[in-house]
């Protein structure tokens, strides 16, 4: 059994990978897609098409607005019907570009064949440009623009590229499916990123509950023969796929509070991102498709699917294709059950980072009434960041922001272990999330004040 794991905390929810044996199916095109301009971390993109324009699949329809931002491409061919606010899955207004689908024409230069191209281009800058131009963002959840992450600030050197293949969230199986079905492409994508980072060590971190994926990756890595590349089985424990936890497990180094992975020489990329990098660099295909799982505890086996979807498809459309919302579903979640978002608006559309439609029954998901804290300390035991959620909860209620900062509320990764494990069902994470926001605000205000003071001092000198 694999013993490699992160050092603090963690929980062991039932992994419930019920959909793991369902091969990836390609979803048929809907009549209309709505493509959000805010599909990545950072500034929303700015639309660069007008109503009435004819677009092809893979054509840029919105341009990045700032350093941390990304291109958005049309996922279909057709006519732009409208550009305006539409509600996202939380019910908030976000600018969407509505495109009526006509046929399926792709822009020139996109290679839609499935021939494997194993040769790695040598021009680092050109590859980075391509990744940027194809709008690739991290598909592990945070949707951080990949070209920014693969281009560390001067002075910091990547020592290890970690491919996040843990898929530690229960229920989700889409990463598992691509690891089985598109193994070689993922490995080539990893090799491309390895080249971009200057040929560092590359490790696939896979949770041990996916032996087939470990076997497939090992075979592919051996067959394709890229240098310094290996597959490392990890213990099944949530949140094994958390960025800091994964670095801790693989490299035995802990990223300092507030630090970036690169500060310990690590770059972490999801396997789905690796596939997107492969398609972008080798096939010129922008990031307009991704895989997602339709699953849940109240879903019959025949209604479970792993789909390849195009961005902009309404969730309700996908649900219909999968056979409708199951009768017992009480909650619909986009993402995993630990960190995913509950869907408030089922007409919201898929984005680059969509990874699932998860139906949970009332018995599985309903929160129980909050009881009194019995000071059992289970939340502190479960916290992978070594925080003391019970204490943070108390300090938040007292409104003590300095003490919250001292007790590292800002280090919270919102993994949900504390709330998951609390026997008294105290909404620890609900409050700690807000506490984290307060502390971050205080830190930012302080930094701004310090900067202003420094500027004032330097201008005085002049």
């Amino acid at each position: 059994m694999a013993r490699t794991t992160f050092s603090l905390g963690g929980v062991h929810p039932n992994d419930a990978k019920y959909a793991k044996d369902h091969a990836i199916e390609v979803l048929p095109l809907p009549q209309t897609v709505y493509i959000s301009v805010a599909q990545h971390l950072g500034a929303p993109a700015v639309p660069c098409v007008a109503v009435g324009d004819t677009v092809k699949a893979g054509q840029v329809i919105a341009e990045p607005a700032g350093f941390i931002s990304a291109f958005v491409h049309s996922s279909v061919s057709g006519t732009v019907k409208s550009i305006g606010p539409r509600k996202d899955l939380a019910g908030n207004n976000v600018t969407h570009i509505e495109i009526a689908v006509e046929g399926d024409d792709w822009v020139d230069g996109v290679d839609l064949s499935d021939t494997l191209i194993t040769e790695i281009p040598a021009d680092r800058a050109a590859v980075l440009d391509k990744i940027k131009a194809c709008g690739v963002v991290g598909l592990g959840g945070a949707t951080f623009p990949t070209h920014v992450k693969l281009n560390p600030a001067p002075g910091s050197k990547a020592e290890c590229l970690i491919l996040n293949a843990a898929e530690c969230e229960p229920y989700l199986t889409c990463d598992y499916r691509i690891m089985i079905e598109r193994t070689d492409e993922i490995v080539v994508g990893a090799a491309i990123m390895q080249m971009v980072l200057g040929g560092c060590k590359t490790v696939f971190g896979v949770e041990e509950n996916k032996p087939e994926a470990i076997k497939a990756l090992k075979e592919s890595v051996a067959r394709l023969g890229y240098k310094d590349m290996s597959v490392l089985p990890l213990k099944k424990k949530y949140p094994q796929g958390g960025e800091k936890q994964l670095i801790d497990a693989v490299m035995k180094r802990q990223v300092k509070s507030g630090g970036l992975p690169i500060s310990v020489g690590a770059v972490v990329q999801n396997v789905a991102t690796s596939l997107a990098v492969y398609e972008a660099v080798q096939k010129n295909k922008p990031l307009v498709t991704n895989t997602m799982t339709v699953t849940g505890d109240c879903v019959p086996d025949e209604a479970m699917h792993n789909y390849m979807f195009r961005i902009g498809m309404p969730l309700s459309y996908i649900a219909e294709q999968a056979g409708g919302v199951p009768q017992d579903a009480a909650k619909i979640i986009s993402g995993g059950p630990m960190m995913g978002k509950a869907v408030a608006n089922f007409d919201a559309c898929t984005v680059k980072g969509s990874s699932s439609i998860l139906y949970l029954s009332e018995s599985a998901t309903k929160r129980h009434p909050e009881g009194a804290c019995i000071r059992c300390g289970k939340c502190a035991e479960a916290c992978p960041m070594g925080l003391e959620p019970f204490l943070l909860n108390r300090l938040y209620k007292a409104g003590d922001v300095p003490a919250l900062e001292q007790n590292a509320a800002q280090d919270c990764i919102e993994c949900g272990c504390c709330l998951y494990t609390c026997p008294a069902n105290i909404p620890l994470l609900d409050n700690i999330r807000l506490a984290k926001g307060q502390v971050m605000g205080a830190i930012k205000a302080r930094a701004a004040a310090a900067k202003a003071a420094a500027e004032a001092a330097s201008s005085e000198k002049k």
Partner: protein
Amino acid sequence: MTSTIIWTIAILAGLGLLLSLVLFFIAKKFKVEEDPRIDEVEAVMPGANCGGCGFAGCRAFADAAVKAPNLDNNYCPVGGNEVMKKVAAILGYEIKEKAPMVAVVRCNGTCENRPKTNIYGGSSSCKVKASLYAGDTACPYGCLGCGDCVNACQFGALSLDETTGLPVVDETKCTACGACVKACPKSIIELRNKGPRGMRVYVSCVNKDKGVVARKACSAACIGCGKCAKVCASEAITVENNVAYIDFTKCRLCKKCVAECPTGAIHDVNFPVLKPKAAPVEEKKEENNG
């Protein structure tokens, strides 16, 4: 035996004397000189320590008021003009009298007007709910109904109405300290002029969506049609971002806008009930006088 008792008494008395001397000298040496007027001012304050004035508590306010050159920036909303007159008398300053204010909840998204679109299952806090998503109705601007304002109110002036799901302000208890305004993550509660005999007119909606969307989400929403602005003789009404706002410093309480509003989003409260002639426009006012 007697000598033991005498010794005990002597030693204890001596100890007491010695310690009291030490205390006396320490108190002398570390005495903090304070303006005695601070105590005087504090004595006339309401003593709620609510922070409505912008200071941490009544003593902090008194301290600031004594140190300030005038009372222009220091006003106790809870005590109102009466308390401020006393403060001014102690300090020898002039005061600018302020019209009494009251908290107004600008949302009429009752369970009936604004149907629920999902069930909120997280912790009962507007702050948590607002940070999570738009809310359990189709209106992303309206009241979330978890009662953060009720919890923030020290004076018991707010309560949640169970049938409407909205907070109700008890005007007799509201001191306009503004704690609820700060607590509301949706900025729905506003401090407005209490008005003559409590009469006032306001738009009970903050929905910035376009009319069709807003109307679909809530039958009592302001749709930004601008009819009220047109009919207003005193130019008190502005329509911005699809929502009307009545400037209470300009409003002359003519109530023409109330009659004009197609969705009943404009509320008039505490007006005397008129003869049957003018009845149709006044249906909702009783329950919504928050």
